[in-house]
Every structure is written in structure tokens, then in C-alpha cells.
């Protein structure tokens, strides 16, 4: 009874915030993707023309392919490295807390700032070869991967550490008694039991990599010739730098949303299945 009475008080703030910050813009955005407009209040209905335009344009498909490659590479590297670090830092080594803090810190810096810092660093290194990061799309690609790793490893590591610490020590002791070596313990005890953490980490890294924008803008801005532009940046450029293409930008954004949502659901479903009850 008490819960029912206070229900609106607890839910209202969140609900209002959700409506203002998500539901309304989302519906409006969906509507705008079927229109031609300059500002959000003067839209004219054009049907699916924007979607056709979005797909008839090479930039969008190139950006999609680049994003997919980037996501695959960075998801693997980030999670492998973060998990390894988490294993090492739960062994009770000296200075563990210091290391955890240090690894976590890059995550506290904003994307634009990180992008510019890494641009300076990478250009500084490439300076010896007399070129810059825009010289070859490969440089931009690996630059982005390094940046993303640097930023996300600490965060994922913290999640893995929490997962590993939650494993009851009797299970590990039992496996030791049964004569399992370290690798076997890892594969048959640790990994199954940290599956919830893996689910979260995969979800976070996949969506973050796929939606990457600030870092991309600050590090390469798509140079050379949009070859390192990811989806979000391509949408931004379509929206703001072409006259009469605002609707197409919006259509691309809707497609983008569908892709991200689909990937995340599939991934969640797959990893959830692997989670075990303790």
C-alpha cells in the first residue's frame, strides 16, 4: 500500500527526464527522417526518399565497414587486455591499489581532449618518418584502436576485478585439490563465474566502439578523404555540411540506431546463455 502511494513521487522525476531526454527526441527524430527540413520545426514530408539516398551514397557504406572493422579489433583487444590485467591485479601483488587507480584514470578524461592528446603523441612519433596521422588511413585506424584501448581498458578492468573477487575461494581451492592446473582453473572455474562481467564488458565495449564520435572527430576527423570517418561522424557531416541533406542525416541516424540495438540484443542474448548460477 505504502509503495503504491509513493510510487509517483519516486518514478515521476525519472519518467519526466526519460520523456524529455529520450522518448520525445526519439519520436521526433524518427518523424524527421521521413522529411526534408532545415530546422526541426519546418519539416516537409518526403517519405522514404532519405533512406534511399543514404544507401545510394558510398560514404555511408564505407563508414559502416570502417566502424565494423574498428569495433571487432577494439572489442577483442580491450577485453583481452582488461581481463589479463584484472587477473594480475587480483593476485595480491604489492601496489595493487596504485595500479588499479592508474589504469582507471584515462577513463576520466573526456573524449575530445583524449583525441587531441593522442593526436599530438602520434604525430610526434610519426614526425620521425616526416608524416602525420592523416597520411594513411591505416595510421588513423590503429591510432583510434590505441586510443580506445587506453581509455576503456581501465574501466573494463575494474568490472572484471569485481567479478573475479566475487568468486568464492572454496571453489578455487576445490579445483586445486582436484588437481587442476592454473589454465584449467581459469577455463573451468574463473571464466564461467565471471560471465556476468563479460556480458557487461562486451556490451559496453561494443556499443561504445560502434558509437564512437568525439575521439574520431578530434583524432582524425575522417582524414584522409573520409577514409577514417566512422558512422557517427558521417552522420554529423551529412547533417551539417550539406545543404538539403538534413533529412538524410536523420535517416542515417535511424539506421544507425537499429544496427546498434540489434547488435546489442544479439550479444546480450548470446552471453546471457553462458552465464551460470553459483
Amino acid at each position, binding site marked *: 500500500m505504502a509503495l503504491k502511494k509513493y510510487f509517483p513521487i519516486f518514478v515521476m522525476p525519472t519518467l519526466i527526464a526519460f520523456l524529455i531526454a529520450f522518448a520525445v527526441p526519439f519520436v521526433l527524430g524518427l518523424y524527421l527522417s521521413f522529411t526534408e527540413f532545415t530546422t526541426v520545426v519546418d519539416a516537409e514530408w518526403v517519405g522514404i526518399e532519405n533512406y534511399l539516398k543514404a544507401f545510394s551514397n558510398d560514404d555511408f557504406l564505407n563508414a559502416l565497414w570502417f566502424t565494423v572493422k574498428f569495433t571487432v579489433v577494439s572489442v577483442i583487444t580491450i577485453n583481452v587486455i582488461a581481463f589479463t590485467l584484472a587477473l594480475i591485479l587480483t593476485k595480491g601483488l604489492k601496489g595493487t591499489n596504485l595500479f588499479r587507480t592508474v589504469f582507471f584514470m584515462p577513463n576520466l578524461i573526456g573524449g575530445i581532449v583524449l583525441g587531441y592528446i593522442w593526436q599530438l603523441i602520434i604525430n610526434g612519433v610519426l614526425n620521425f618518418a616526416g608524416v602525420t596521422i592523416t597520411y594513411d588511413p591505416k595510421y588513423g585506424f590503429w591510432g583510434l584502436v590505441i586510443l580506445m584501448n587506453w581509455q576503456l581498458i581501465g574501466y573494463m578492468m575494474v568490472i572484471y576485478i569485481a567479478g573475479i573477487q566475487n568468486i568464492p575461494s572454496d571453489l578455487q581451492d576445490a579445483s586445486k585439490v582436484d588437481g587442476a592446473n592454473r589454465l584449467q582453473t581459469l577455463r573451468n572455474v574463473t571464466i564461467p563465474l565471471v560471465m556476468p562481467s563479460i556480458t557487461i564488458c562486451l556490451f559496453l565495449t561494443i556499443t561504445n566502439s560502434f558509437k564512437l564520435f568525439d575521439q574520431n572527430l578530434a583524432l582524425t*576527423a575522417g582524414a584522409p578523404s573520409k577514409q577514417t570517418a566512422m558512422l557517427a561522424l558521417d552522420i554529423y557531416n551529412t547533417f551539417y555540411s550539406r545543404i*538539403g541533406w538534413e533529412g538524410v542525416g536523420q535517416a542515417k541516424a535511424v539506421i544507425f540506431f537499429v544496427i546498434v540495438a540489434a547488435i546489442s540484443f544479439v550479444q546480450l542474448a548470446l552471453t546471457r546463455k553462458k552465464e551460470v548460477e553459483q
Partner: protein
Amino acid sequence: MKKIFAVLLCIPFVFAFAACSGKKPDTSDAAKAGTVYFLNFKPEIADVYKEIAQKYKEETGVEVKVVTAASNTYETTLKSEIAKKDAPTIFQINGPVGFQSWSRYCLDLSDTKLYSYLTDKSLAVKNSDGVFGIPYVVEGYGIIYNNAIMKKYFALKDKAVSISSADDIKSFETLNAVVTDMTKHKKELGIDGVFASTSMGSGEQWRWTTHLANVPIYYEMKEKGEDSTILSTLNAKDIDFTYSENFKKVFDMYVNNSVTDKGLLSGKTVDNSMAEFALGKAAMVQNGNWAWSQIADVSGNVVKAEDVRYLPIYMGIEGEEKQGICIGTENYLAINKNAPEKDRQASIAFLEWLFSSETGKDYVVNKLKFISPFNTFKDDEKPEDPLAKEIFRWMEKDVNNLEWTFNSFPSQQFKDDFGNAMLEYVQGSKDWQHVKNTFKNSWKSERK
């Protein structure tokens, strides 16, 4: 622990609501007389506009709100601001192409005094339905050079050219000979390169994609024989880029005689190159009169005001001995058609006050440092900075100063495509043909 967490979660909402309820509508007398909301394009003079707004309120009681869009974000800011209930009443379009995207918002200004003040009515953005954009500043660009360094060069005994002053440079051939020879003597001249860095960073390529490309397109359009190259360019569905080789020669000259190595140019910004010029590391830089404040503000600046001059951008095109610098504008004021009537009137009154009253003009000349295209300004009411003076000198010369044809380039996307292709050319991964093709193809696809 849970309680603390819950409290923490609530904090953002408190702030959000506080922020939403912060602004109360203005109900004073001034609001009844109409208010002005000016969305300013030029960040470098944002403070002056604030001062003007203050002054105007003291004189007339009318509230003027000035908001400045950060550098390179004007279109973004305008798009979101103008959709609001409290939309800008005065905004800026960048010429006929800008008018295409904002035509639904531009008020016909043909009956205003502001339009009647224009010395040359053809400068305004208009069509058969009326006048929609009024230029408020005239600007000029070319190759800015530091005469102190040039004098040093011409005094050298083993110089390879026969002329003895930068005033004698009247063609690309001479210019190129001087520049190449100066590069050979750069140690004696105390410079790192003749030209300041050709900034190729993202968002920093406009000096080449618009200003430099203006010259070949101007000539190409001129040959088609129409009066206004701006209009004929706006109507051009295709472009031949006839003078692409000439463009390439100048661009190569900038890059090969630069302070910075080719491969590193993509890290350079316009600010970098203006600083190099101001510190005397370079003798020349392509830019316009707005850059004077940038040059003067660099600490350790060694360039003296009396040494700063313009050279036209010569490209080796026939008849260029008579070519002047590029003079025009891409700053046009427009009034928001959808604003309430009294706000529109107040906005027009504010602009008329700014460009015709004594107080307003004083701000325009001495603080904003605009060369105004209005007949309300007398001959002695002109800005005093050296590059502005240079523009007057070129206007009075018996030369053909070029229009700003680039106002009609198709879109930002076109400029970006072109700039990206140039970057690839500079870095050596693509050849010039690629730049030329990109220019033509992107023009075609961006011009609908």
C-alpha cells in the same frame, strides 16, 4: 549506503529542474517595444558587440541580446537556435548559397533604410522577390608580405632577379622567381621559409578551398562573359576547372617554399601560420584583413604595421598584370521573417542605428574595425589598421580587383572533399589529376 546512493541519483534531477525553471520571461517595458536577438558570427569581436548592446540599451531602452557562435559552429548554432521560441531576430547568411538553405527565414529588406544606405546595391543577396541579405563589411585578401624581409632580400648582392622592390612583382613568373630565390637565401634572411605553413588540418583548409580557388574560378566564369561571376557560378551545374594547372602552380609554390615540411602540414592550423608570420619566421602568408588582429596579438610579434602589404595572388593567367586583390564579403545580415513584428522592427532599427548614428559608426570604425559598404560613412570614417588601409590602396589603384566568386561554391561538403583531395596530393598518396577530378565530381554532385 543505499540511502547515500539514492540521494546521489537525485542530484542531477534537481539540477535539471533548477536549470529549466531558471529563466523567466522578460516583462519590462523594453520587452513591449520589441527585443533584438543577434546571433553573431565573428567570435573575435564578441565583446565589442556586448558593449554595443549595453550602449544601445542606455540610449534607447531596447534590449539587445548578443549570442556568439564559437568558431566554425555558426550553422550548427543557428539551426538549433532558430527552431526555438525565442529565436534570433538578426542572423547571418554567407551569401547566395547560404540564402538557399535559409530562404524560408529571410525577411524582404528592400524597403528598409539599411538597404538604401548600401553604396553598391548589387552587393546585396537578392532575387526577383526582394532583398534578403545586406552585406555589412567589405573584406579583402591576397598574399600578405612583410616588407622588412623583402627589403632585406632585394638588398642582397647575389639575388637572382632584376627587380628591386616587391611593388615590381606583377606576375606569377616574377613572384615565383623571387620566392624560389628567397628560399635559397633563407639563412641570410633569417627566415624558416618564405611562406607560412599551408594549414591543412581539418577545419583549417578554407584559405585554399575557398580563397585560393576563387582566382581560377573567377577567371573561368569571367570568360563565359557574364557580369557577375558570383551569379554565374551559382548557376553553374558543372565546372571545367580550366585553370587547375595554374592553381596547382601557386599551391606548389606555397608548399615547396614553406616553413613546414610537406608531410607535416596536416597538423597545422591558420593560427600556427599567422604566428609564424608574426614572429618573422616567414615572409609571406595568404590571408585577409581580418588577420591583422591575429598578427598584432601574437606575443613577441616582430612585424611592424608599416611593413605589412598585400600582393595579388598571381597565377600566370593572361592579363594578370592588371589583377588586384580579392575584395568582397561573405557576411550578410538577414532578419528572421518568423519573429514577431515588433521584434523585427526593433532589429532593423538597431542595425540602422549601428550603421548610421554617430555613436554606432564610431563603434563600427574604431572597435569592430569594419570597412563598411554603407554611404553613411564619410571618407575619414575608416578603420586605421594597416591591412584595411592596404585594401583602400588597392581599391584606388588602376587594377581589376576580383570578386568573391567562392561565395557560390556548392556546399561545405564540396569544400571538404576538395580540401581532403589536396591533402592527399600534398602527402604524395594521390596525384593532381585526383584533385581535379574530385573538384569537378564533387561540384556536380553537391550542386542540385
